[in-house]
């Protein structure tokens, strides 16, 4: 967690900073809060949305199932209708093969005046290749029809003279094949009679065909109808008494079926078929089921996914709220750190500047924009006597409480050495015993400047510090001295001072590198900027300091900056 890391990554100097435990506590609190949120947000809303998704999924599934099932049924019915019409055409075609031999026989008898021998000879050949079990020739006249000849079995109809008479009369009148059924023999028979009206009408050729045993017969496996079960009835209708033949045991057919009535001579047949497997294929039959199962699974999956997504979103929202709280806490701590650092910094700087006659003093301390930690810059002004003032500006490398502590000890040590009237070079040499870069990792650059307004002398001593700027008569120059090493490099460093005549009226400005240093440019550029800014028209000391902070330091201000200034008038 970046924010938490940032919080942990705050200054390592423990006293000013909330430690890791503080962060852990904050996280713990937010987790607790998240759990509460979870208990509140969970439930109805998640499951309502998932329920809606499930319902919509099921509705769509049901619609698709209905469409596919309807399509399947329509297809099946259409195909079955086509098949039963095909079968009907075949049965109609069988009319010719039944009627032709009888018509020919009747015509032969007519032409030969009932020559039984010729009829028998002709019809015997026919009987041999036909389905007839009995063929006979009858003569009509007054009274009962008289049988002239018989080939095959005895006609069953002969046992009922009344029926034979009316049947032959009807067949003669109709002028087409007369059909009669079912004749109760074993097995039952159908009777066919033909007496052409174009002839004399005195002879009737009559045949009977036997139904298969138990009226049961299958289509041949190679038949175009092998995929159908069927039932063939005599007459119009599916009366079981009139069943001629079927390959089924259970009748009548109640499953999906199609029926067609086929006129056959004076009678008719009814043909009923039912498929024993789907005509449009097994897949078409299973499709509604497949759609139903797939739709159900998809709907359930979508509902679960919806619930999960909503839960994830809620979790993300809770996490975002927790993070926002942590960030808020972090901002607060950060602001607190800054406030503490600034307060401490100002506490370590002199709150009242000493005054001596004829010298005006001013100072500024600006915290760098990165300043969450206390910095190591400082300034100081010490009145050595009524006419001498010591100006000190220093910079301890590094930041944090350690830098501040070193800074404070250096500052107070300078006060002590100045009080015993040590000159600046001696002060710096003594200070170099207090700080050691090898043990503390710290260096300090210090500039000491003494203005003697009575003698009008200015003395400058530098331990690795940038030179002070002397402004007089609208021009400015840096007072270069021999720069000694920073405090902390050598334990017995030697420093030398430069002493110049001070102009009767002038301003001396000492500063830390934060004022002039910018990344990506030479420090000389910053020094030039300072020199130009300080050389402009005469302004009050406070205004000058404000302007330098604003114009020279500018927005870059990463680093802390200390400026101290003396202005004298002889």
């Amino acid at each position: 967690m970046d924010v938490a890391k940032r919080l942990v990554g705050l200054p390592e100097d423990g006293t000013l900073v909330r430690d890791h435990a503080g962060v852990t506590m904050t996280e713990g609190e937010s987790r607790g809060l998240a759990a509460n949120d979870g208990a509140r947000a969970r439930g109805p809303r998640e499951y309502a949305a998932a329920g809606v998704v499930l319902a919509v999924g099921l509705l769509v599934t049901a619609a698709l199932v209905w469409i596919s099932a309807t399509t399947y049924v329509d297809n099946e019915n259409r195909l079955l209708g086509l098949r039963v019409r095909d079968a009907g055409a075949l049965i109609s075609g069988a009319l010719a093969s039944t009627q032709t031999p009888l018509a020919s026989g009747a015509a032969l008898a007519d032409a030969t005046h009932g020559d039984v021998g010729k009829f028998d000879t002709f019809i015997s050949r026919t009987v041999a290749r036909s389905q007839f079990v009995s063929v006979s020739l009858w003569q009509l006249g007054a009274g009962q029809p008289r049988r002239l000849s018989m080939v095959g079995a005895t006609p069953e109809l002969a046992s009922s003279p009344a029926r034979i008479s009316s049947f032959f009369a009807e067949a003669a009148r109709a002028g087409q094949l007369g059909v009669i059924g079912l004749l109760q023999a074993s097995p039952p028979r159908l009777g066919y009679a033909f007496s052409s009206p174009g002839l004399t009408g005195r002879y009737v050729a009559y045949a009977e065909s036997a139904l298969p045993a138990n009226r049961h017969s299958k289509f041949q496996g190679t038949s175009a109808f092998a995929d159908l079960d069927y039932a063939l009835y005599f007459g119009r209708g599916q009366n079981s008494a009139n069943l001629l033949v079927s390959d089924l045991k259970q009748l009548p057919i109640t499953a999906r079926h199609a029926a067609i009535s086929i006129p056959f001579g004076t009678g008719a047949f009814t043909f009923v078929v039912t498929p024993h497997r789907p005509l449009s294929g097994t897949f078409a039959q299973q499709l509604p089921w497949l759609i139903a199962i797939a739709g159900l699974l998809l709907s359930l999956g979508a509902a679960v996914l919806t619930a999960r997504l909503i839960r994830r979103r809620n979790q993300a929202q809770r996490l975002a709220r927790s993070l926002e709280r942590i960030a808020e806490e972090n901002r607060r701590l950060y602001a607190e750190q800054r406030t503490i650092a600034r307060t401490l910094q100002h506490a370590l700087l002199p709150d009242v500047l000493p005054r001596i006659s004829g010298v005006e003093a001013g100072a500024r301390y600006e915290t760098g924009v990165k300043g969450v930690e206390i910095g190591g810059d400082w300034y100081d002004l010490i009145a050595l006597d009524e006419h001498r003032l010591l100006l000190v500006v220093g910079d301890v490398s590094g930041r944090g409480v350690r830098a501040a502590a070193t800074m404070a000890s250096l500052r107070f040590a300078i006060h002590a050495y100045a009080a015993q009237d040590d000159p600046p070079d001696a002060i710096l040499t003594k200070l170099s015993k207090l700080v050691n870069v090898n043990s503390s990792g710290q260096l300090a650059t210090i500039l000491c400047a003494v203005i003697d307004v009575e003698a009008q002398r200015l003395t400058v001593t530098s331990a690795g510090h940038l030179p002070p700027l002397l402004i007089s008569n609208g021009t400015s120059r840096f007072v270069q001295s021999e720069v000694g090493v920073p405090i902390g490099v050598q334990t017995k460093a030697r420093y030398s001072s430069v002493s110049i005549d001070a102009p009767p009226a002038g301003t001396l400005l000492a500063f830390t590198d934060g004022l002039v240093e910018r990344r990506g440019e030479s420090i000389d550029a910053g020094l030039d900027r300072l020199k130009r800014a300080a050389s402009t028209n005469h302004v009050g000391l406070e205004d000058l300091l404000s302007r330098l902070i604003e114009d020279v330091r500018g927005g870059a201000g990463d680093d802390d900056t200390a400026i101290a200034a003396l202005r004298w008038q002889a």
Partner: protein
Amino acid sequence: MAGVDPDSVTEMSFELADGADGTVTVRIGGELDITNVDELGSAVQRALAEGPERVIVDARELRFADSSAIALWVQWAAAVPDLELQGASPFLRRVIESMGLTDTLGLKP
């Protein structure tokens, strides 16, 4: 977020090379400042513990160094008989001169 990230670490890279003649070369690139100086310091500390004769700080790729970086080099200079800062940019050279550390850091003219 108000203010500036207090923990932003400046981009810096370094490379240590141990020469056979007791010379340790520290190549530093990027910007070295208070935010990352400890990382470099602890890495080089291990190399210094071996007691090399000479440390060369190669600063050709270094764009910026603040006072804490200079303090670190001064520490190194105190720890070995000979330290030389090579390839310092004019900007860096000027800062070191202004601090009176030209000799300490073995900055050649």
